[in-house]
């Protein structure tokens, strides 16, 4: 039975069979079933404001051109030219009038349509249907509040439905802060780890004190902000999730009170509460969401960080992942606020980041270790908090669990991954996938 096909994760015990990280066949299947089906983040509207502006990205191992056409529409096109499959664009970004292939000179419009072929009539005498031989567009493109996503699967549900309230909330954390403007410059580097381990880690508030012990001792970030006792988890359909710091309504009101009485800043999250007190924001985030300061992951691989950054984890084979750090500023925010964030953006994450430089070897060794003849048979334990928490459904419909450091997010990530891998189509996935537990068993 296909539903038994992949059985690497046991939701009842939180035990993982680590072969999921190193098997080449599994990886090939992931490219089809995960990246080939999901809505993948490709860029933010503000990165390509003008007609002809383009930004290159990857959907699994397919390279795509994300380009704004003359009508202002964003198109996502496969970077592959019909005659021999040559790439028609080799820059990472730029502005162009059309895409001219360096092999035979076929020329494509900003929407991918074939607008020129050298000697079309003289050489292609039996004619060729130009409409049929443009650059292949992805199945669907849509954006949520400026964040552009694309999917290769025509059967994928609409983006809004795909994101669900958790995915949307993850983006709202950013979008409700004001007009988001992505900065020029994406930090890219490669880590010899499986992409799922990189994603797993964004939910991992247990590793911070140890993996990033040096940064904490230096006070790069405040102790409390880096490993707070109060945690909150929200899980969404199809694998989205938010995990990390989160506080009770009571604490939230205390914070508001501090801020009103000019004592804001006493606790690290006051800085965020201030913003959420701006008109309409708390309402948009909702009574549960507003109290979370955690890490959203838009399944499969978009991490929304607290530093006005998002990080894509692009698979490059079972043993390698490319990290892309995007940063943004708030157009209308006071300059010092943006400078405060840019400071973090240039010093915490990325290959030279005071935090992230210490992650790489742990991830690569966790992946590499999975190749040993004995090692690959040893179970991995992700049982932290398993069955220990109840999720409270808020009247608003938002469901969150207020708890301590845990591995709910990671388990949800792997469980969802397994459901995607065990479904042969979107239809099957829609019917088979688990709903986020109202109560985590």
């Amino acid at each position, binding site marked *: 039975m296909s539903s038994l096909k992949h059985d690497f994760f046991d939701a009842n015990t939180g035990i993982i069979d680590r072969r999921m990280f190193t098997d080449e066949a599994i990886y090939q299947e992931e490219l089809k079933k995960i990246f080939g089906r999901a809505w993948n983040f490709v860029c933010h509207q503000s990165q390509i404001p003008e007609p002809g502006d383009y930004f290159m990205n990857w959907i699994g191992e397919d390279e795509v051109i994300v380009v704004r056409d003359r009508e202002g529409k964003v198109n996502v096109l496969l970077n592959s030219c019909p005659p021999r499959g040559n790439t028609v664009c080799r820059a990472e970004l730029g502005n162009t009038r059309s895409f001219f292939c360096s092999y035979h000179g076929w020329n494509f419009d900003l929407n991918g349509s074939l607008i020129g072929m050298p000697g079309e009539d003289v050489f292609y005498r039996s004619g060729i249907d130009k409409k049929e031989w443009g650059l292949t567009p992805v199945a669907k493109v849509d954006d949520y509040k400026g964040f552009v996503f694309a999917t290769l699967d025509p059967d994928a549900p609409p983006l809004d439905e795909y994101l669900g309230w958790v995915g949307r909330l993850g983006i709202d954390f950013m979008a409700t802060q004001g007009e988001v403007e992505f900065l020029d410059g994406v930090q890219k580097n490669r880590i010899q780890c499986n992409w799922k381990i990189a994603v797993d880690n964004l939910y991992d508030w247990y590793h911070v004190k140890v993996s990033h012990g040096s940064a904490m001792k230096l006070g790069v970030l405040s102790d409390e902000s880096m490993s707070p006792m109060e945690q909150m988890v929200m899980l969404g359909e199809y694998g989205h999730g938010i995990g990390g710091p989160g506080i009770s309504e009571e604490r939230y009101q205390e914070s508001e009170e501090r801020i009103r009485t000019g004592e804001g800043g006493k606790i690290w999250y006051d800085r965020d509460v201030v913003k959420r007190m701006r008109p309409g924001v708390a309402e948009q985030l909702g009574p549960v969401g507003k109290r979370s300061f955690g890490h959203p992951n838009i399944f499969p691989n978009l991490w929304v960080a607290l530093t006005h950054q998002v990080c894509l984890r692009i698979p490059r084979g079972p043993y390698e992942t490319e990290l892309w750090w995007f940063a943004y500023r708030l157009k209308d925010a006071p300059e010092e606020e943006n400078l405060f964030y840019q400071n973090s953006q240039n010093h915490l994450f990325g290959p*030279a980041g005071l935090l992230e430089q*210490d992650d790489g070897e742990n991830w690569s060794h966790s992946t590499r270790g999975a190749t040993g003849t004995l090692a690959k048979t040893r179970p991995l334990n992700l049982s932290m908090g398993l069955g220990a928490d109840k999720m409270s459904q808020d009247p608003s419909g938002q469901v969150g669990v207020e708890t301590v450091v845990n591995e709910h997010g990671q388990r949800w990530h792997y469980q969802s991954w397994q459901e995607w891998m065990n479904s042969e189509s979107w239809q099957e996935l829609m019917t088979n996938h688990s709903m986020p537990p109202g109560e985590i068993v």
Partner: protein
Amino acid sequence: MSGVEQLSVQERMLLKHEVEEFLFMEAELLDSRCFDDWLSVLTEDIHYWMPIRRTTTAREVEREFTKPGGMAFFDDDLDYLKMRVDRLRVGRAWAEDPPSRTRRLITNIRVTDIKGEEVAVGCNFKLYRTRLNSEEDSWIGRREDTLRRVDGHFKLARRHIFLEQTVILSQNMSSLF
């Protein structure tokens, strides 16, 4: 380069030699892991910067690097550099425990300008790093350094690093350039 051209070739040779002595000493401090000593040859107002490089078409090649004040891999003042050094002392700096083994090949040293106490120097470099069972990383590029004479000795007042790579091929850059 007026500053340089006013010098006689002998003067340039001598200056080049002094610059070389400084840069080789400074590189050796890093390679031999004497990081505190390294901090001591920096000026208080040092700017240590490595922009992000991107592949562009020939036509738009002026967009190759991110701009000062924008996103970067390094954009440090002395405090940040101190943090990078201090973290090695406080423990749990896993990227450097076990310590990396590094070697800096500094070549093509050229004095490009002189202004008062400051000498602008360009050089090419290959920073080689190996860890554990000889896993290897190489970072290759150009540096624009500014050396300033402080009571008769050079100190490093500015270091702008221009890597040739766009995607960083290593799992971190826990070394100093």
